[in-house]
């Protein structure tokens, strides 16, 4: 177990509503989510001395601090690589509070990703940026390989070829997500489950990916309050301890286009997984529920494999027969995921893991009789963006392994 495990906790969570058109500025969305997160745990902006967000976020730490009347900041940081940053922001905050660099760090992400700049479209700026990311994109963008869906489809096609996976296997992830979203009033697709037939009938976006393999585009914001384990115990909500927090990138890493490795896939998530198990002393059997980043369904199968929930190529078998639905061997994305609830760049998934640890999810797994796996574990695992340098967390009801 590392020096980080159990030293920090997520004490508060907050979010705006999730919509297709918020009608508000991105800065305002983040401010609203942060206010809600502070209220959730009984703190005020005056308590906050650190802010962390994504490199991609359009609201700077100083702008947020001004809006919230936060006086002095002692710690501010940003994490790169799109949605891969999600759990990395919490790792930054946890390291800051564990080392005493800061006392209360708020991590936030807010955007009008549907009504403003849509990630599902070609990001012309991404190919025009004069830096190494722009140079990397030179090998795909001019050819018309620009959208996240198409870049993932290239990996998905190869995965199908190597392991005999089918579009239906991907579809089972979407069905699970939408089943969970159907009972979540905060989800955009609340009350709208889908069948595998719906998935198969949905139009082709980037063959082999159907529309229902792709996450939504959403407006909204999520914020999390991170503080030390000791302080968290005195606050309004039960702490969700940061049992492990890891980042990972793998050899020959690119952003969405790591196509030049012998064996393509998401080995960066393997790096994250090994570090999570190392820090926590836990293993896959100690996880009751997982929030696996699901911007596109094929990567959920590959993540299950990289994290060791099943062997290489066994993802399709793992998700069969409701394996990742409520009542299955590993319920995944109990809030509905980014396909069902909203696409807030993975941050809404961390909030769901906190709710699972607290026992307040609408689709509660941890602590429910007969649920939470055979070991009755109280840990939830969360991952961040896939296909990019990424990150992950294990959150637990108890600060140390074995909880």
């Amino acid at each position, binding site marked *: 177990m590392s020096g980080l495990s159990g030293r920090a906790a997520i004490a508060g969570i907050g979010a705006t509503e999730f919509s297709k058109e918020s009608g508000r500025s991105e800065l305002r969305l983040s401010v609203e989510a942060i206010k809600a997160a502070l209220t959730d745990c009984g703190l005020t902006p005056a308590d906050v001395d650190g802010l962390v967000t994504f490199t991609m976020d359009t609201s700077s730490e100083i702008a947020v601090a001004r809006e919230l009347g936060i006086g002095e900041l002692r710690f501010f940081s940003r994490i790169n690589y799109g949605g891969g940053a999600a759990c990395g922001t919490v790792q930054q905050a946890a390291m800051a509070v564990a080392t005493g660099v800061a006392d209360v760090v708020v991590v936030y992400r807010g955007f009008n990703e549907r009504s403003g700049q849509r990630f599902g479209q070609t990001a012309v700026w991404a190919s025009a940026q*004069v830096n190494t990311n722009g140079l990397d994109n030179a090998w795909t963008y001019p050819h018309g390989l620009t959208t996240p869906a198409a870049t993932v489809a290239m990996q998905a096609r190869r995965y199908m070829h190597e392991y005999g996976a089918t579009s239906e296997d991907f579809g089972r992830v979407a069905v699970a997500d939408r089943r969970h979203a159907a009972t979540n009033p905060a989800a955009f697709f609340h009350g709208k489950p889908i069948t595998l037939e719906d998935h198969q009938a949905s139009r082709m976006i980037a063959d082999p990916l159907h529309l229902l393999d792709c996450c939504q585009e959403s407006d909204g914001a999520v914020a999390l309050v991170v503080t030390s384990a000791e302080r968290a115990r005195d606050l309004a909500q039960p702490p969700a301890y940061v049992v492990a927090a890891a980042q990972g990138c793998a050899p020959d890493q690119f952003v969405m286009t790591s196509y030049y490795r012998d064996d393509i896939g998401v080995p960066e998530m393997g790096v994250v997984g090994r570090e999570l198990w190392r820090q926590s002393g836990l293993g896959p059997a100690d996880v009751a529920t997982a929030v696996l980043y699901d911007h596109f369904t094929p990567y959920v199968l590959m993540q299950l494999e990289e994290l060791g929930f099943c062997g290489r190529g066994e993802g399709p078998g793992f998700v069969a027969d409701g394996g990742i639905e409520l009542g299955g061997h590993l319920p995944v994305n109990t809030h509905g995921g980014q396909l069902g609830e909203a696409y807030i760049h993975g941050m809404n998934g961390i909030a769901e893991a906190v709710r699972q640890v607290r026992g307040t999810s609408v689709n509660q797994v941890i602590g429910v009789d007969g649920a939470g796996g055979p070991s009755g574990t109280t840990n939830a695992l969360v991952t961040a963006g896939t296909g990019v340098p990424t990150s992950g967390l294990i959150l637990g009801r108890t600060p140390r392994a074995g909880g």
Partner: protein
Amino acid sequence: MSAATGGTAYDHAWVMAEAEKLTAAGATVPRRGRDPVNQPMINNWLEAMGNTNPRFTAGEAPPSMAQVWTMKGLNPPSELFDPLHAMMGKLTEAGFTGVLGTNCTQHYDRTLKVGEEVAVTTELESVVGPKATGVGEGYFVTSRNVWRVDGEQVATMTFRVLKFKPAPRKPVAEPAETPFVLHPIRDRDTEFFWDGTSVGELRIQTCESCGVLRHPPGPTCPSCLELARGYVVASGRGTVFSYVVHRHPPIPGHELPIVLALVDLEEGVRMVATVDGIAPERLEIGMPVEVGFRRIDDTLTLPVWRPVGGISVVEDAEPSVVEDAESSVVEEAEEPGHFETTPEPGQLLPIWGLHITPTLVVSTALATRDFQDVHHDAELARSYGSRDIFVNILTTNGLVERYVTDHLGHDVQVRSIAIRLGAPAYPGDELTFSGTVASVEGDTVVIDVVGTVSRDEEDGALSIASHVTGQVTIEIESGDPS
């Protein structure tokens, strides 16, 4: 104030009543061609099409010339009744002024011989509409021709045109929405690659110290950390490692769907590019491909993948003349005239690229005895709203025949050509044919053929559109059973 006029109401009922009359009239009386099947006209046609099949200088006529023999010529007698043209006239009266050929299916019962006298009958088969189409509301008018020699049927054609009310032009897109190919950021470390594509070389970075190849390139050799780099020119051959058919959303500078492949080059590096000249459903992992180059503008040439067997040429802004394009094809293509092996479903025909010149458009139009002004008078063609003169349908048929027989053998017997027409082919366009064996049953082989037109737009963008898609049915061991 909308009082009904006392004149004819040119409504749907009127159109269908006229159609009924013309359909009920049945086939016209046989009309003889001006000349019997003759070698000089065949020679003109062969020359214009670039067809070198020796059978057609030894007494046989090319199958796709069937229609040529009975073309009405430059000054058709006005008393000639033709139900297709009559119906088109009625639709013009009713306000459906636009016309677009959409489908043409020809069957050839046998090859015509020099000296035979061919006569044609025409009947109106159907008028269907009104339908909402991309160009406006219109009626599909289908006619059927039968060609006979002394009463014996030798060929047939079903021909469909769309007569439409031209829809008002859509407002011109905002400049910001004008499609353009996203240009790559390049720097000192990657410039050599793009310099290479512009001269038709696919360059791979190599380490001057340890010799390891690397793509994408960078300033060091990750294997030995030396900074001295050079490059090798790839053979351009590789196999598909994975692929994507991108259907949504639209991407700047590309027409949907975009077929993209990640290719393992035989030198051992992997690279992304689009795949040209293949139907998406034919693409598969492991398929051999080779590189071609597509010039986008003065600063950018992109590599593209093509099914193996295609030609690898730089498509320059000032392309080489037709003869050059043809000679490169002849070199690349297997020797025509016989079949080495029995074709198998899925087998690919080599890509054939043809540069369209005004000379090609005009000479083929005249060799097919098609004197419509849009095929030879640029000023008039433009006055009708066309970009320029364009290739006529009889020529598209002839080129499809040539493509298939050049690659599958001059001794095969073409039994039918069924084509669906798309974007016009204008001078300056590159017309690129690709083909796939769709089915083989005994001696009968069906080949799917696709012809796309691509051109450099003035703003530097490359536009690509389908000119023709269709199926050619051939018999591989026939000769003529005469």
